[in-house]
């Protein structure tokens, strides 16, 4: 079984926001909800770098650990998903997440008024039936069920953003590092994948 991961190669990201636009268009997320965003550091000075950030689908996901309603679950492919019906909009996951992934449709409102949390699903939908209208309305497109990878990475013009089975994308990145002749850390990987894979209720059924 594959273990799905994201990898953003900061040597290649050109801050074009193509991934952000692809994500919004594919999942029809509302204004203000950004499942993915591009962050630039050292803007305008030598050494400027950009990185495209979304939920990294951590091996030991802090959001899962802190959620008081246990709305999170992990698929067999390692994708961290959640059940919006169980979400109470408390925002704990937002404070726990090292990547700022959880989004709330009503912004920084008071507890209970933020609305249901929304985040990157690795284009894998939610607990509803694959490809159903209900699934799309709550979670966006389920591309994985159609045998496709997340659109953000598919649309990346420089192939800075990679999405897919961990050994495959690691190989691509390793080859790039070898060609460049300098080591580079895969951004965010230690934080996201540095801990042992957390055992979690695997199937969607468990979350229902």
């Amino acid at each position, binding site marked *: 079984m594959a273990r799905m991961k994201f990898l953003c190669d900061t040597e290649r990201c050109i*801050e074009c926001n193509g991934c*952000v*636009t692809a994500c*919004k268009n594919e999942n029809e997320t509302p*204004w203000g909800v950004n499942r993915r965003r591009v962050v630039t550091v050292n*803007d*305008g*000075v030598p050494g400027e770098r950009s990185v495209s950030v979304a939920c990294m689908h951590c091996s030991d996901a802090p959001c899962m650990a802190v959620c008081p309603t246990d709305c999170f679950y992990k698929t067999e492919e390692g994708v961290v998903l959640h059940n919006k019906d169980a979400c109470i909009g408390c925002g704990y996951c937002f404070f726990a997440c090292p990547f700022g992934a959880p989004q709330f449709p009503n912004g920084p409102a008071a507890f209970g008024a933020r609305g249901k949390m929304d985040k990157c699903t690795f284009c894998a939908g939610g607990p509803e039936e694959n490809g159903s209208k209900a699934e799309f309305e709550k979670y966006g497109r389920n591309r994985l069920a159609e045998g496709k990878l997340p659109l953000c990475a598919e649309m990346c013009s420089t192939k800075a953003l990679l999405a897919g089975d961990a050994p495959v994308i690691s190989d691509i990145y390793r080859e790039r590092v070898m060609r460049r002749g300098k080591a580079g850390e895969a951004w965010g990987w230690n934080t996201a994948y540095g801990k042992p894979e957390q055992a979690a209720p695997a199937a969607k059924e468990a979350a229902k």
Partner: protein
Amino acid sequence: MLYHIFKNGWEDKAYIDARVFGLDKVKAEVMTWTPERVQDVTGIPEAEVLRIAEMLAKNKPSTVVWCMGQTQHTVGNANVRAMCILQLVLGNVGVSGGGTNIFRGHDNVQGATDVGPNPDSLPAYYGLAAGSWKHWCKVWGVDYEWVKSQFASQAMMEKSGITVSRWIDGVLEKNEAIDQDSNLRAVVYWGMAPNSQTRGLEMVEAMKKLDLLVVIDPYPSATAAMAAMMRKDGVYLLPACTQFETSGSRTASNRSIQWGEKVIEPLFESKPDHTLMYAFAKKFGFEKELCKNIKVNKDKQGWDEPEIEDILREINRGAWTIGYTGQSPERLKLHMKNMHTFDVKTLRANGGPCDGDYFGLPWPCYGTPELKHPGTPNLYDTSKHVMDGGGNFRANFGVERDGVSLLAADGSASKGAALQMGYPEFDHVLLKKLGWWDDLTEDEKKAAEGKNWKTDLSGGIQRVVLKVYGCHPFGNARARALVWNFPDPVPLHREPMYSPRPDLVDKYPQPDDKKVFWRLPTLYKSLQTKVRDISKEYPLIMTSGRLVEYEGGGDETRSNPWLAELQQEMFCEVNPRDANNAGFRNNDFMWVETPTKGRMKVRAQVTERVAPGTVFLPFHFAGWWQGKDMLEYYPEGAAPIVRGESVNQGTTYGYDSVTMMQETKTTLCRVTKA
């Protein structure tokens, strides 16, 4: 950079000797540009220039990429020639991985240019001479005398028109000063953004004065709102559909052509451009002449729609100059269907039905489609046979100049050419002289008699020259480093119209004013002299350009929620030093004021992206005017989601001395806290 290249002997001497003309005069000018002088004018220190020159010289091939940063200046023509000369000196032109790459701003700009929207040429760069008109009349199947009768006079027919950059002067200039009978009274904005053009304050005055203004666009656009601000009637909006709602060929910057299929039916009441064009022709009474060779079908609402494939076939039958002749709709569609058979590095089909073709048949793809020319992936590449996409420099300016040959040196022809030397362009006379005439078929002979490689509609001359003898139809000459018919034959530095340095204005002045230039009087030295000291009031350099999120004038992209969310406000990039001096902080509102009396209220983006003394503003915004939202001037529900000040409200007068391109890339401004 050329100074360091020559000084260190890094130039490609063999290449220059064989394939370049007039470099000695350029070199003489270059060697006067000592590092001290360069730093004084550009601000770039010697070490940096040397580092880049060495990097280019020692890492070959290398390419140079630019967009509008080089061209939108009064010296734009000199800038781009200087870049080409740099590449010629390094021997980087005509090699894979080399060349100069000028990126187009949006879909099919190259294709639009190729079919002749410029006011100095018929399609495919044939110019406006009587012979050019006769060539195209023959292609169109219409009588030359009839076409002539549509013009006020033959002189008007053959005289370059007013460029889009100056239409406002065509309206506002005194009638006795312009080189045509009447001023412009009607303007059609067809997929064109007014906020991408300079001198916005004068533009609204011109819009007010017009009898008629027509906007053809998927969105009402800033044109409609600007006009509505100035007048109550005489403005017509015609909804055009987007490229996704029609099919047809699109040409990219690398001259390759792709066939696009219709994705959805045109939305609402919109129509494709060619349907609108036909409706106009019908109203004016020449629809039969417009579509002599083109089948006309009825669309779903009963409008007449010319058949797209036939339009391309007509282009194929006439555009011999640039080899836009071999790319039939059938060949292009075959490429799209068999995309997977093309190698991603060479762009060449490896087996399959398109075997040997370069993807999209980049022009020149000479001859008829039946000749099966594979297209040309790199221009001027002598390492390949011409039927393999090879080529050389064009013999477009005669065979000698001042006693020096303009033709390429012996041994520098394309691979396998029967003539391994420089040679002129081919016509019926040269073919006969060489004894190649009898390689033509009897039918081809009839068509080619009295013709040359670009007017022989049978394609026989091109076929014989290319296929039988491996030569280039347009001859084999040297690239001109010295362009004797331009105002500055050697590219020269001239200070911009609005310069922050009066001392440099004195040293590097603009040329004298021109009385008639593209039908209009055009100011250079007199204006520059008048504003010589204006930097006392407007001390900062103001430049403008693009953002990745928006495109062109931005009406379409600022109406797209996914993109609009990413750039929600018009802004100005200011260096922290200038922001601190002016007393505002990041994200404050600020005023940008320019010598046109343009005033723009924008967000301050305080950043090191710009150097002290320079500010940058993106040009994609419109919908605010001098601090006020223009929402009420858009048709209800049609305003873009994001609106902001147009930088071109504040850009100033200044035009390239050859092309009449507007100077958007440099003027002056001052900034204050709003």
